[in-house]
């Protein structure tokens, strides 16, 4: 199984450090194994040899119920002399958990430089071993390294490393410290498998694996029912998407005869353009994406996923895992570019999600919920990008979003950490995540304040911040494809493609406006105005430790300057144009050109200026609107706040979509299963009517026979005699 023994062909990367690509996922896996073992050693007490012997000496299991900072205040604070006890393995875990990520990041950077030096016409594929060689299905465990997966690997290990470091501070007093890092390492392992997998099933391993880790981490503080519920919901909703992914793979295998990513891409372009099969494959793949990347209709799990620790929200539910769907579409660009109808669907769903989630984001009070809906909305943007065939733009936004959203989440994590600590000191059970309880934090946490404003400007699309570049490129690409593209030539449900794209463009602009508004609202309520936390608590508000703010600084630099990765033609003055575009060209270039009918999208200079100008104006207007309209000074703490009414109530309750799903799908399924299938069919018809029914029938016959048995010997004798005479008589008279 030594991968080095398998000749890799003559790929130029084979001679470089990149041949160690299999080590990338293995490092976090090793971290998981070590941390997991430590977690077990720390928590477990092996039971007595004979478990059925009486339970006389009750264990001390009540003692330390672990809750986290996010657990909405009411945690072990009732223990008056509660002194946080560090886990006994904390030092070694703090070393290994982030350590493996640092090593992986180092390796990734080395691979990146190796890749810069060589031609990446073909992806670099490392075959580790034969995985599922069955019949016509010859699946190997292969790693695929190309520019696209390189970008993803850098984001995952880089941002992941920063978040691991942040977690050392954030989770320091949690009793589940080693378990936390074990899960986090495992997540990185699966995420790397996802982006490095050389075939769709292998990609699916990572795909489901990250879902599993997401499940474990959302429900990390599982002693609260709400957290356990949220984890379960995330997993099951994701599974609905996974069903789509599975069906897409069945279609690929039966129609294309292979499941290797390269093989599928090569075969897909041989199918008829826009044919039923290729469209079905693309749509089913996209169903998978709606689950993992929280798009309509399967976005409902992501806001609930905020039940997990905040660094988890930053890593999994903002920067990496939820963008897997975007990665999948970009990875399958050959398939999507052959199915314009599917592309339009992706773009439209992305646009609708961006808009819809942004409206909900306007009225949320929980700081993490604002960011959660913001994430859903931004993911919608990315899908608009990859949907219209602007794969680079989508991936570009994926990268910048990873920077500024991770920063926002970690920043909010710092805020929650500090708020929680303050409430903890005063034994107050109030909500540490509700913005109505915050306000004026800028004087207590100035570093976090400035860093989060950086991210806010980036996400709002203020010029020269990273979000500006990426969002603008997506919107520009949509506009460019309104005419003269495969999309414009096809139609979705009878609506011409050009019209659909214009609608998407409008949705994008509207969402941009709302993004600026809700982000400014969040900043105003959190950091500006008077403080509403409470008199006693105020004394305990202070900046989070450096191990937490340090990573924020790095992310802020990236959020501010990430736009230089792909500078548009228009701004060629400020730096090299289109670096990311050139980088990704070998992977998605052909597919992009297919959508734009072979020509690079050209726009008149004025049009482009107009578009950019509109976008900037909208961002500015949003911020200005929020600053003028919203009065942080007038806000009252959560406990004094009146209940929302009208449209506010609808928005605050997220359009009651969860309730609707519950009533439409969950309860009917459970109800029918219980009442009809179990009690009705199983217990009633099969068991009752047929099984026990036939037994009953036999018993009835038996009962009838038994009535002949009087128990009187005399009767028997008479019957015998009569019988004998009858028979004799019958013989005689015959």
């Amino acid at each position, binding site marked *: 199984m030594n991968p080095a023994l398998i000749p890799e062909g003559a790929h130029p990367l084979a001679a470089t450090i990149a041949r160690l690509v299999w080590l990338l996922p293995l490092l976090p896996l090793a971290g998981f194994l070590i941390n997991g073992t430590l977690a077990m050693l720390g928590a477990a007490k092996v039971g*007595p040899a004979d478990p059925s012997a009486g339970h006389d000496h009750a264990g001390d299991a009540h003692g330390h119920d672990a809750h986290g900072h996010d657990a909405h205040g009411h945690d072990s604070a009732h223990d008056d002399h509660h002194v946080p006890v560090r886990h006994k393995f904390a030092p070694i875990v703090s070393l290994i958990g982030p350590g493996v990520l640092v090593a992986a990041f180092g390796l990734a950077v080395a691979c990146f430089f190796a890749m810069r030096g060589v031609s990446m016409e073909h992806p670099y594929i490392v075959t580790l071993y034969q995985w599922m060689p069955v*019949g016509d299905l010859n699946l190997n465990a292969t790693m695929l390294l190309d520019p696209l997966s390189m970008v993803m690997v850098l984001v995952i290990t880089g941002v992941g490393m920063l978040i691991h470091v942040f977690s050392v501070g954030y989770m320091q007093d949690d009793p589940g410290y080693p378990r936390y890092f074990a899960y986090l390492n495992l997540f990185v392992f699966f995420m790397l498998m996802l982006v490095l997998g050389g075939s769709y099933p292998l990609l699916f391993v990572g795909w489901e694996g990250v879902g599993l880790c997401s499940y474990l981490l959302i429900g990390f503080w599982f002693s609260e029912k709400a957290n356990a519920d949220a984890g379960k919901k995330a997993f099951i909703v994701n599974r609905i998407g996974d069903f789509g992914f599975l069906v897409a793979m069945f279609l690929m295998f039966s129609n294309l005869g292979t499941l290797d990513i390269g093989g599928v891409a090569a075969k897909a372009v041989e199918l008829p353009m826009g044919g039923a099969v290729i469209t079905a494959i693309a749509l089913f793949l996209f169903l998978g994406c709606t689950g993992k990347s929280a798009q309509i209709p399967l976005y409902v799990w992501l806001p609930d996923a905020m039940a997990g620790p905040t660094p988890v929200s930053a890593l999994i539910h903002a920067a990496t895992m939820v963008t897997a769907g975007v990665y999948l579409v970009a990875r399958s660009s050959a398939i999507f570019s052959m199915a314009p109808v599917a592309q339009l669907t992706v773009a439209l769903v992305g646009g609708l999600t961006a808009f819809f989630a942004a409206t909900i984001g306007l009225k949320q009070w929980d700081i993490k919920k604002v960011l959660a809906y913001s994430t859903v909305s931004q993911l919608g943007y990315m899908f608009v990008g990859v949907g219209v065939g602007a794969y680079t733009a989508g991936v570009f936004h994926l990268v910048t979003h990873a920077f500024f959203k991770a920063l926002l989440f970690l920043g909010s994590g710092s805020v929650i950490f500090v708020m929680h600590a303050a409430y903890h000191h005063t034994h107050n059970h109030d909500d540490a995540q509700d913005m109505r309880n915050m306000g004026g934090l800028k004087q207590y946490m100035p570093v976090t304040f400035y860093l989060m404003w950086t991210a806010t400007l980036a996400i709002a699309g203020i010029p020269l911040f990273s979000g500006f570049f990426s969002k603008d490129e997506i919107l520009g690409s949509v506009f460019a494809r309104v005419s003269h593209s495969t999309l414009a030539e096809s139609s979705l449900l009878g609506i011409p493609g050009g019209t659909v794209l214009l609608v998407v463009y409008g949705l994008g602009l509207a969402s941009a406006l709302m993004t600026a508004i809700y982000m400014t609202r969040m900043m105003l309520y959190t950091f500006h105005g008077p403080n509403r936390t409470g008199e006693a608590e105020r004394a305990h508000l202070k900046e989070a430790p450096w191990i937490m703010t340090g990573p924020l600084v790095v992310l802020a630099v990236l959020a501010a300057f990430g736009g230089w990765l792909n500078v548009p033609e228009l701004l060629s003055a400020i730096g090299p144009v289109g670096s990311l575009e050139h980088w990704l060209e070998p992977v998605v270039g052909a597919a992009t050109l297919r959508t734009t009918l072979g020509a690079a999208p050209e726009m008149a200079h004025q049009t482009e200026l107009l578009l950019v100008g509109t976008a900037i104006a909208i961002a500015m207007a949003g911020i200005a609107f929020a600053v003028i309209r919203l009065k942080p000074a007038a806000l009252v703490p959560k406990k004094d706040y009146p209940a929302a009414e009208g449209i506010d109530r609808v928005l605050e309750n997220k359009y009651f979509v969860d309730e609707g799903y519950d009533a439409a799908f969950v309860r009917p399924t459970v109800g029918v299963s219980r009442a009809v299938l179990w009690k009705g069919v199983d217990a009633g018809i099969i068991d009752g009517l047929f099984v026990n029914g036939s037994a009953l029938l036999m018993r009835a016959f038996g009962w009838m026979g038994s009535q002949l048995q009087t128990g009187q010997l005399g009767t028997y004798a008479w019957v015998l005699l009569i019988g004998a005479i009858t028979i004799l008589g019958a013989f005689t008279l015959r």
Partner: protein
Amino acid sequence: MTAFLSSINYNAWILPVLLLLPLFGALGIWAHALVSAKDPAEKRWREVRLLAFWFFLIEAILSLGLWWSIDPANPAWQAMVDLPWIPQWGVRFTVGLDGIALTLVLLTTLMMPLAVLGSWTSIRTKPHAYYVMLLLLTIGMLGVFLSLDLVLFYVMWEIMLVPMYMIIGVWGGERRLYAAIKFFIYTMIGSLLMLVAILYLGYVSSKVAGSPTFSYDFIINNVALRPETSLWLFGAFALAFAVKVPMFPFHTWLPDAHVEAPTAGSVILAAIMLKMGTFGFIRFALPLFPSAVMNPAVRGFVVALAVIGIIYGSLVALVQPDFKKLVAYSSVSHLGFVMLGIFAMNVESMQGALMVNINHGVSTGALFLLVGMIYERRHTRMIEDYGGIAKVVPIFATILTIVSLSSIGVPGTNGFIGEFLVLVGSYKTQPVASVISATAVIFAAAYLLWALQRIIYNPLTKPENAAIKDLNWREIGLLTPLLIAILWLGVYPKPLLDKTEPAARRLVEYVHATAAGVNNSALNRSR
């Protein structure tokens, strides 16, 4: 290893030894019961469980050699032994293996010691009889996998019933008699029709051969049946196997039997005995009656039942209040996948079906062991009686989570490989069935994760749960091999797939070719 095995002529004696060793074990335990009659009950119990465990362990170790000694690519039966048994009726003691049977034989011999360890402390009444029953059961189960004579097969098939009836009826739960009788009669009714079919086949083959014979090989190679006859006989065989699988709607014995059986009984029932049904289809029903199998109506009907079983089993599992019953219904769902894979009739799906067979044995076996362990501590199987025990019993919670994930079919565990192969293969021939069945991935996650949440997560509300002791070394030790299997088969299933691939391929090709009327000798085996 191979050289060593051939130097001791392993293949020549291993199968009779595997079948006889449990018999000697049973005699040994009987002897122990007589010798130790005057000892205190505690001492006798400790001795007899150790004695039984040793027998099972030796059996397992002996059988391991098969992994190396069997050549799966060779179309001839491996390790074959053919002795006269009832010459007047042409019944012979013919046993032999191919790759498919190999995996199931190993599953049996390796699961048995674990099952014994699983009931190490919970069975204290009549321990001698209990272990004798387990040993006799082993003979029956191995016999079914090994028999190459129809009468021998039938005898082995029925032998299994009696010890299992006793195990459920004597050492079971509250409604054990109901469950035991239901199990017995259900299975018996199914298999009686099969007996008729076997006798008919023997009658026909004897006419062809000129002397009485029930030889599997002879019937396969020489007996040509008219399609209608084939259909009826297939029906008779299929009913017997469908009850055992169990396919919807013949599954209702399973939840009762599983719930009432003691831990070892449930484990054996789930891990091994349910495989008899699917193995029966693979070994007998398919190659004996290819034209019936490939009949579109028959095939559509069986596939439909399989799909109903998959969805129905998961939905009913969703609402079970009793964890053991939940696992039982999940078995209905999993075995539905096996049936779908078999009747989709291509190499991928067949391989997937064989894989699910093994996976289900490992994962569900482990689940029943875990339920048994927690039941031994808390004396309840009701899900609602637990909650929040992950903090109290972290080892148990971790293992339960891993095993559940395997049962859900999360990639990286064995469950995924099997389900994926079944679905991806069956899509080629039965696309609708495949897509409908794929929704089971959603339901499986729903029922197991919901149960998991209510057992090990959520707040710890019941004070009696706070005192539960975690797993002990014995329990950890006996679960470890299963955990290794779960991960090994998920990450690197190739060795196992390689064992079954040639046989699966031969079977699929033979059925297709024979049904198409081509005289194909893919299954012709030289004796």
